[in-house]
């Protein structure tokens, strides 16, 4: 079901924006595959899907940031005419709040409003901007402590998010008619998130429209009038919110923890696990040959704990022939790939001090190392001398795995390494990790996917930057991980996230 029109039964008036058969290709990747959707005044569209389902791409097409490769998009201007293009998107009253903040940290709160609001010029513009943003902040987040003259860089992340939301809803020379909120509550605490949801409802009741993207299913069910479920760049289900159950949405997304993983998690072999090799101040511990998982909701301090541990065990001044720890990056662009180099050079970097003969790098030994790992880990390339960027994401990740595993480090730290990796590669990586653990290597493995965490020998669940639970053996179940990940709320309801939907019933 790719066709999705306005809000079901009630006859929609002219849609604010209509997307028909829109596709977006990035190289060979189809980020968006023939999506049609329209949104009308008074609607709140909840958009749900896994990472990489195409939500962000869809949103970027709607707000004019991306031009679809095929298909068309049409905006209805306030005067009733229709138009296309980036400037039309703005003029038709579409505003976006993105996951990555789009404020200027060097400007004050009111100065930041100047960027989207073109009418703020001439004498007294500061006064007007200040009033405007303050009004919006007061309406949405009453009781906030933000002053228009504060520099954005000095605000907390939550306050910045509030400013961003408030400036999206603030009326400028042309009224705001459709607001796109992409994970708006990720950095807000519960009471402020509640204020936002209330405002979204009020805004839609007043004839505005909202596209709401969130991993929190209860938030979506709270505000959405219609829910579209996306998968693989397509809209696979689109119904009024009342026709969905949370279970139904989950089923539509097709997220089920595979029996495979469940079974493997039972196939643990405690024999290989030796004495304790690490213990950090915050309580993270691992024994020789153990695969230790770090779980919990994304951004609750797992990556920081890993980085802290890695930096404490590796220096920035000494050349180390036998490193204690090796690192597998998940954010490849930021932490892993050296973009100008060949696959071979990327792979050999950590082990390189061992390949030095008479002061120079031993080319033949390096080549041999590359070939060994090419076949061991199955990097699909004609030659290891090809540039690393010629590989697909999954194969780049393999090279990064090989970089860490080729070293002699007894401990390997992995920071969500399966991000954006295809299923086949994942399977191969799991096997590899198990084999290496059997050879007495210790793994610290942070993962956002419960399926992966369930394969570990021991799991530490993080919440608000601290360890909230330590699970081992049969205790490692999705239910236990989830209950340790969430703070129980007064309502007794367990909030859901995209990754951990199952136990949320």
């Amino acid at each position, binding site marked *: 079901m790719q066709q999705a029109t306005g809000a079901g039964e009630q006859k929609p008036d002219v849609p604010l924006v209509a997307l028909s058969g829109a596709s977006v290709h990035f190289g060979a990747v189809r980020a968006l595959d023939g999506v049609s959707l329209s949104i009308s005044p008074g609607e709140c569209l909840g958009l749900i899907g896994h990472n990489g389902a195409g939500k962000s791409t869809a949103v970027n097409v709607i707000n004019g*940031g991306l031009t679809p490769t095929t298909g068309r998009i049409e905006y209805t201007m306030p005067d009733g005419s229709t138009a296309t293009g*980036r*400037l039309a998107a*703005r003029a038709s009253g579409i505003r*976006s709040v993105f996951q990555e903040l*789009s*404020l*200027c*940290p*060097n*400007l*004050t709160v009111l*100065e*930041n409003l*100047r*960027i*989207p609001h*073109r009418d*703020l*010029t*001439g004498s007294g*513009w*500061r006064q007007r901007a200040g009033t405007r943003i303050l009004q919006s902040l007061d309406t949405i987040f009453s009781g906030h402590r933000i002053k228009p003259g*504060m*520099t954005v*860089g*000095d605000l*907390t992340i939550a306050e910045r998010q509030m400013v961003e939301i408030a400036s999206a809803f603030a009326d400028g020379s042309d009224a705001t008619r459709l607001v796109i909120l992409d994970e708006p509550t990720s950095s807000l605490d519960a009471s402020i998130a509640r204020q936002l949801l209330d405002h979204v409802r009020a805004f839609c009741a007043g004839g505005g429209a909202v596209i709401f993207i969130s991993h929190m299913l209860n938030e979506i069910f709270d505000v959405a009038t219609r829910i579209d479920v996306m998968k693989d760049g397509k809209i696979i289900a689109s119904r009024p919110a009342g026709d969905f159950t949370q279970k139904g949405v989950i089923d539509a997304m097709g997220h089920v923890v595979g029996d495979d993983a469940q079974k493997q998690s039972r196939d643990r072999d405690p024999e290989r696990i030796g004495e304790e090799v690490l213990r950090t101040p915050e309580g993270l511990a691992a024994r020789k040959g153990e695969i230790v998982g770090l779980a919990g909701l994304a951004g609750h301090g797992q990556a920081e704990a890993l980085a802290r541990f890695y930096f404490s065990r590796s220096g920035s001044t000494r050349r180390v022939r036998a490193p204690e720890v090796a690192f597998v990056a998940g954010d490849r662009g930021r932490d892993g790939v050296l973009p100008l180099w060949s696959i071979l050079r990327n792979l050999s970097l950590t082990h390189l001090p061992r390949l030095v003969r008479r002061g120079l790098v031993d080319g033949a030994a390096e080549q041999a190392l590359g070939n060994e790992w090419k076949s061991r880990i199955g990097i699909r390339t004609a030659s290891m001398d090809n540039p690393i960027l010629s590989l697909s994401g999954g194969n780049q990740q393999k090279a990064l795995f090989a970089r860490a595993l080729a070293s002699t480090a007894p401990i390997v730290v992995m920071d969500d390494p399966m991000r954006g990796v295809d299923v086949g590669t994942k399977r191969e990586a799991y096997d590899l990790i198990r084999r290496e653990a059997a050879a007495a290597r210790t793994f610290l493995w942070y993962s956002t996917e419960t399926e992966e965490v369930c394969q570990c020998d021991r799991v530490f669940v993080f919440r608000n930057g601290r360890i909230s639970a330590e699970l081992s053996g049969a205790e490692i179940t999705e239910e236990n991980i989830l209950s340790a990940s969430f703070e129980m709320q007064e309502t007794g309801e367990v909030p859901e996230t995209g990754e951990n939907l199952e136990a949320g019933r």
Partner: protein
Amino acid sequence: MNGRFRILLPVLSLAVLLAAVFYLQPRAMSYFGLNLLFNLAVPIALATIAQMMIIMVNDIDLSIGAFVSFVACVTATYLNDAPLIGALILLASILAYAALGALIHLRDLPAIVVTLGMSFVWAGLAVLILPSPGGAAPEWIRAVMTVKPPLVPMAVVACVLIAGLTHLLIMRSSTGTLLRAVGGNAQAVFRSGWSVVRLKAGAYALAGLFGVLSGMCLVGLATSADANIALRYTLLSIAGVILGGGEFTGGKVSPVGAVLGALTLTLAASLLSFMRLSPDWQIGAQGAILILVLAVRLVFARKGRKWKEAGNGSSDG
């Protein structure tokens, strides 16, 4: 560090230096003494403001010294002999700056290299115009630079005017806000439908304008020009911006700070003569002040961060 805090350090460093000068040489505390102290600071302050415009959009200008020298040569020759042609040349050079800004943005070039190349070009043009030192300052510039306003000397009035006007332009006006936004988050500016190219060209044009003003002032003071007259302004202007609380990235600049930075550097050079130290150390004193202020800034920033963390911690708990 927020805006108000940022300006504190430049003010303090200038005040300390000034106090030291007055202590060592009370006679400097006069109309004439102040004018003498700060006279040469005026063109440096203007060049520093020019550099600040470029740093504001996350670039750096290695050509400003050569450009000011070029302007000085034009001012001492064409602008004096054939004012119309001279004015046209200066106008064209401002446009060249704007075009450069656009080119750097459109082709995504490293500003440091392009301005490096331009420094050769400006220096070459200066040599073509004035192969050997000479020329003469136009009467009216000379008159402006030597005017004696009541109570406060010209140099001080000029610096206050420069600081005040650029503060209004960059920190208060809506256009200035947009320009700083380019340095802070160009992506956000682009997404809101602005032309970043035009804004960047605008920032470069402003730099050109202040470079021209700097060169004209310099000739007014020096009465003649040569092709190397202002080469050291490149480094001085960068130092002045940083001393004034500016940062290389993120659009964090302060025009008032930049002027104060330029004054501080000028004063650091003349402080030595009041201390009866060898003038050999003039440049060194500038370097030492720069290092000292940056060290103090680091301490402030650390304190500020700790303070902020403590504050956040308590509000969380």
